């Protein structure tokens, strides 16, 4: 157990993990309970909670991050109002982005979450540029800040990944690249499309090509993630440049909800391990290793969390996300004419 974290902090980490899980379950249930309310494509973070919260537990005021279309988890941890988040996913007027972005494009710059790209790998250079800005400000006497760049394993096959990591290492930019490796590019397994994976090596070996540290960590263990990312964040803040962290997670839902033309009810199909490869054993093992109940059990066993306290957290989280759903359902749609706002600043 990470020595530097207080019991309060450990409980905070668990609480954030539970909030992400409940939020994502309510998004998923919306397809069944309120058909048609969510349009297009959603991507859930269930299974990645430990990695997300462990990473974000390292940041300090002024630090910033960018992410991908699988973006619900980060703002929850940063304190973004979950009512506004759910309303955005439902396309409503008081959504976080006013209904302009939807599930894939959450942003809360006030809290350091600068936004996402819906295109694989394309947010990595954005984070790198934000880190360039942080370096300029720091060298001018400002508080040294750090940028976290979240992306998936698939993004590491993009030119944007290669170009950005080369530049960040060359310029010693204060950025930590956090690759959430869930082993699937939608339906394609990593060992089918990644030379390192096919050779049995961790994907963090890619860091060697950019002369930066590369570390692989168990993304189901929030404290291991915390320790690994903390070291990388400290290194970046100290002016020593970027690190590539490969955080191994298992996505507990399919890549996204069903892709279908209007009129076809949307829902989540079974995980690709089952649907595509017929490998129920792999998926069942992942469910047995689910990081949220596992961390809860660990804290209870170590006396950091009481059973009654854990139940109270669960109840609060359920109430919060129920309120988010009810708020979003009741929130009006935007005025159609608002569609031409914000095209230009």
């Amino acid at each position, binding site marked *: 157990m990470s020595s530097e974290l207080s019991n309060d902090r450990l409980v905070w980490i668990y609480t954030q993990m539970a909030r992400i899980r409940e939020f994502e379950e309510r998004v998923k249930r919306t397809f069944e309970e309120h058909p048609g309310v969510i349009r297009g494509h959603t991507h859930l973070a269930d299974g990645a909670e430990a990695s997300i919260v462990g990473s974000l537990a390292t940041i300090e005021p002024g630090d910033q991050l*960018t992410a991908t279309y699988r973006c619900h988890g980060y703002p929850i941890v940063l304190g973004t109002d979950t009512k506004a988040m759910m309303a955005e996913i439902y396309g409503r007027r008081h959504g976080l982005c006013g209904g302009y972005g939807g599930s894939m494009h959450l942003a809360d710059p006030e809290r350091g979450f600068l*936004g996402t790209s819906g295109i694989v790998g394309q947010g990595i250079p954005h984070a790198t540029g934000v880190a*360039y800005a942080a370096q300029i400000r720091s060298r001018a006497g400002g508080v040294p800040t750090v940028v976290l760049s979240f992306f998936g394993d698939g993004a590491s096959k993009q030119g*944007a990944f290669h170009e950005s990591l080369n530049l960040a290492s060359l310029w010693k930019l204060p950025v930590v690249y956090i690759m959430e490796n869930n082993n699937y590019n939608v339906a394609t397994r990593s060992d089918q499309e990644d030379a390192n994976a096919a050779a049995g090596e961790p994907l963090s070996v890619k860091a060697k090509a950019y002369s930066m540290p590369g570390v692989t960590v168990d993304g189901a263990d929030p404290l291991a993630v915390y320790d690994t990312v903390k070291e990388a964040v400290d290194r970046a803040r100290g002016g020593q440049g970027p690190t590539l962290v490969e955080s191994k997670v298992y996505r507990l839902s399919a890549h996204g909800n069903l892709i279908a033309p209007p009129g076809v009810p949307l829902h989540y199909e079974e995980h690709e391990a089952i649907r595509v490869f017929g490998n129920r054993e792999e998926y069942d093992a992942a469910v047995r290793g689910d990081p949220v109940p596992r961390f809860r059990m660990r804290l209870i066993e170590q006396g950091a969390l009481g059973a009654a306290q854990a139940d109270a957290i669960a109840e609060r989280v359920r109430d919060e996300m129920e309120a988010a759903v009810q708020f979003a359902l009741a929130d009006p749609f935007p005025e159609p004419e608002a569609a031409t706002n914000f095209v230009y*600043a």
Partner: protein
Amino acid sequence: MAREIPYIVAVNEALQLEMERDPTVIFYGQDVAPSDEDPLVKAFGRDRVRVSPISETAEIGMAVGLALAGFRPVVELLMAEFMLVAMNQVVNEAPRLRYMSGGQVKVPVVFKAGYGFTAGWAGQHTGSIYNMFCGIPGLKVALPSTPADAKGLFATAIRDDNPVCYLIHYLLVLEHGDVPEGEYLVPFGEAKIRRSGSDVTIVATGWTVGKALQAAELLASEGIDAEVIDPRTLQPLDVPTILASVEKTGHIVLADQATRHASAASFIAAEVAEHGFSYLRAPIKLVTALDATVPYSAPMEAFVLPDEHKIAGAVREVLGEAPVAA
């Protein structure tokens, strides 16, 4: 006080002045100031002036990140075609992030590149591809045709809170013209009437503005009085100035170095057809590059490009003084 300087000097003067004025302006790109003795490096330091690897996606994507973080980056992309390597960042990231965030962020970046270098650079470094950036809500496109506009449009682009493709024409870089000293801004969305006339409207962009003015001189000797309009920015586009001219002349010819289909000439023609049809006394005529990749060999290169004779010929056609081509 204005004085005569080359187009490329006017470009650099705008950058220098804006970097002096605003410490958030950052300039970098391939082969930008590799020497620490470069005047820009000496003036502004290595944090604000950097040389980048040949990594367009990172260069442009990082500019988006810098802008999100409160800076005003200018990326030197050298050739407009190099933006094609990173087209997602140019058209699908920079112009969309503000909108998708519901107005929470802004992305003030300038993509600076040259285009149209039809001087034997063959098929991949000669394109007039500004049309590719014109159908993108959130993106602006500026095409200076004179040294003064090169300075004034660049300064405006840097101060604009949106992503701007600022495209200089490589055939014009040594052209001299009067350029105001000190701060000089040319507003976006205001066309310039380069020559007043009453018989026909010629709308031209970039290098074809000069060709249109030459055509107007040829036509003047025949008693034809042509008005030449330079939109200066294609996004935003000053449609009212063009329509007012067509209302006066009743005839319009559009000159464009780009290939015909989906060219600036074609979308300006659509605006005139929809909003100015009743003014027209003859069909609209487009004088564009032929629909071919620009060839290397000089006679073939000249063959595919518009020039003053082709523009003058089109004017004679719309005025009924030459047979109208089918």
